[in-house]
């Protein structure tokens, strides 16, 4: 019974979400790039690191998006780059959102000493410029995909934590929380079973926006030469094309176009959801 109720509720909110045109547009844009990223190993494109083609050849029937300075096919690299950029964006934002949601709701629910410590942590992380810290960490510990994800997550969670904290603060005053207390539920049970499910939607919408920022941050870090050199990511391709920006602009511009396209898609979905879940937060 309860499950049926939940499913019909989910369907209703899904219908509600799909009524928003910008969300639908974003989902269409993203599913296109996502599909390409998932299917690229099965598509008939050259291996992304094989240097079998003439160098610096502009878009042609053989290489639809041209080749780069090492004679690698740009189409293959851009599509494999989609895998890397999307994976980093989704994993980093997911991790940041888990950290942010847990710490934010704990700090909102348990005021007192635990809350104060977490608040302090949020404050400190908020004054440390995220990009700066990420830069230092990557240089010091050497770059790899996993470190990139971790670094982006560690430097961006406070925003989600703050949203979650504000949400929990208001939800925990609601009557059903009092009722749960009255029948003797424990704090942890109330927090995870009753408070977080009601408080979470804006944080989830924000997580989607965070995917866009994570992709942009990865691109920025890679643009400075701090990305993982073994895999093509869009930021890394822009970085590699930079010396030839005048003679062979497509090397940088094509991955840039894909990057902007994807971030636009993510922002359309994220902003739309934020508007639905919490009109106040959408004013960003």
């Amino acid at each position, binding site marked *: 019974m309860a499950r049926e109720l939940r499913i019909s509720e989910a369907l209703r909110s899904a219908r509600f979400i799909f009524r928003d045109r910008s969300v639908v547009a974003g989902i269409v844009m993203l599913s296109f790039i996502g599909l390409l990223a998932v299917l690229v190993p099965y598509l008939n494109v050259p291996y992304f690191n094989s240097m079998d083609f003439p160098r610096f050849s502009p878009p042609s029937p053989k290489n639809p998006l041209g080749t780069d300075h090492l004679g690698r096919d740009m189409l293959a690299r851009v599509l494999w780059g989609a895998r890397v950029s999307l994976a980093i964006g989704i994993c980093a934002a997911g991790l940041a959102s888990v950290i942010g949601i847990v710490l934010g709701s704990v700090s909102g629910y348990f005021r007192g000493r635990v809350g104060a410590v977490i608040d302090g942590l949020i404050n400190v992380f908020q*004054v440390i410029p995220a990009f*700066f810290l990420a830069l230092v960490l990557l240089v010091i510990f050497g770059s790899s995909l996993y470190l990139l994800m971790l670094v982006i997550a560690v430097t961006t969670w406070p925003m989600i934590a703050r949203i979650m904290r504000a949400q929990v603060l208001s939800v925990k005053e609601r009557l059903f929380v009092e009722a749960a207390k009255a029948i003797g539920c424990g704090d942890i049970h109330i927090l995870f079973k009753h408070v977080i499910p009601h408080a979470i939607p804006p944080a989830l919408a924000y997580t989607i926006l965070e995917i866009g920022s994570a992709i942009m941050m990865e691109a920025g870090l890679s643009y400075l030469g701090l990305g993982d050199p073994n895999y093509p990511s869009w930021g890394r391709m822009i970085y590699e094309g930079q010396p030839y*920006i005048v003679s062979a602009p497509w090397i940088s*511009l094509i991955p840039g176009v894909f990057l902007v396209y994807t*971030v636009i898609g993510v922002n359309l979905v994220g902003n739309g959801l934020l508007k639905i879940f919490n009109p106040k937060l959408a004013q960003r």
Partner: protein
Amino acid sequence: MGLASYATKKILEGFFTVIIAITIIFFLVNLAPGNPIYFIAGDPVFLSPAVVEYYTKLWGLDKPLYERYLIYLSNLFRGELGNSYRFGGPVAQVIVERIPLTLSLTITSNVLAFIAGTFLGLRAARSFGKGFDSALTVTTFFFNSIPGFFLGILLMLTFGVYLKLFPVAGLMDLRNPKTGIMLYLDIAYHAFLPVLTLTLILLPAYFKTVRDSAVQQLGEDYVMTLRAVGMDERRIFNKHVFRNVILPPITLLAIRLGFSLAGAALIENVFGWPGMGRLLLDSIRERDYPVLMGIYFTIVVTIVAVSVVLDLIYGILDPRIKSRG
């Protein structure tokens, strides 16, 4: 809570935030693998042990970590940031040289973005739902979704390389050095593209805050009353709505000015602008840790100071904030 104790609390909070932030970066940098001496002097194979020992002593790397930490903190309290590994001179001097160059980019573009964003936001709200409003909303959405460095590359290609209207990179024309007022004009000419890039990137947030809250104001009773008495639509916006929507963008401007020392690293890199961002990247690459930590300290102190001042101003303007802590 009285104003004095509120102020003390905020200042103490800010102080501890700075200390914790410094501690984090100090241990990160000092626990990092690799000896900075090798990065600066070269491969250990070609170095005599005497040289290594000399620099280890000179930079105080022979002492245990906690002792170095305490020395660093006590130096900071005396306003000493130490000496650069690379340049030999005091870190403070290296940093102070770069500050005006970065601030001239970031303050200019923040103020421009604030003015243009507020103006356009009000204008868009006035034609809410019409073509002008949608066009602006779409445009700012686009600039919100494009990474700053990529926009910089696009503008550089368009205006610098193809149209040849503006210099591609650098601070001034080195082949043809100018003096006096012409030098400043030359620098401003070179700053045009980086400032344009930053302004376009910063504008969407101001636009969106102002537009959305102005649209919200349209439903308020006072707007209806003013319309009913036949007041000019432009006057309603510029005089009455304006006052009610201007605070959030001012707050945003203040916060962003706090971050303005850190904010332009990528754009400075695109346009070869020799500001703090470039110094930061160079000192990271060369493992010049004193400069790195000096930059970090300067940035964190600025951000915290701005936010404390902002809190205090709000505490004075709105007494309710104080009681909430």
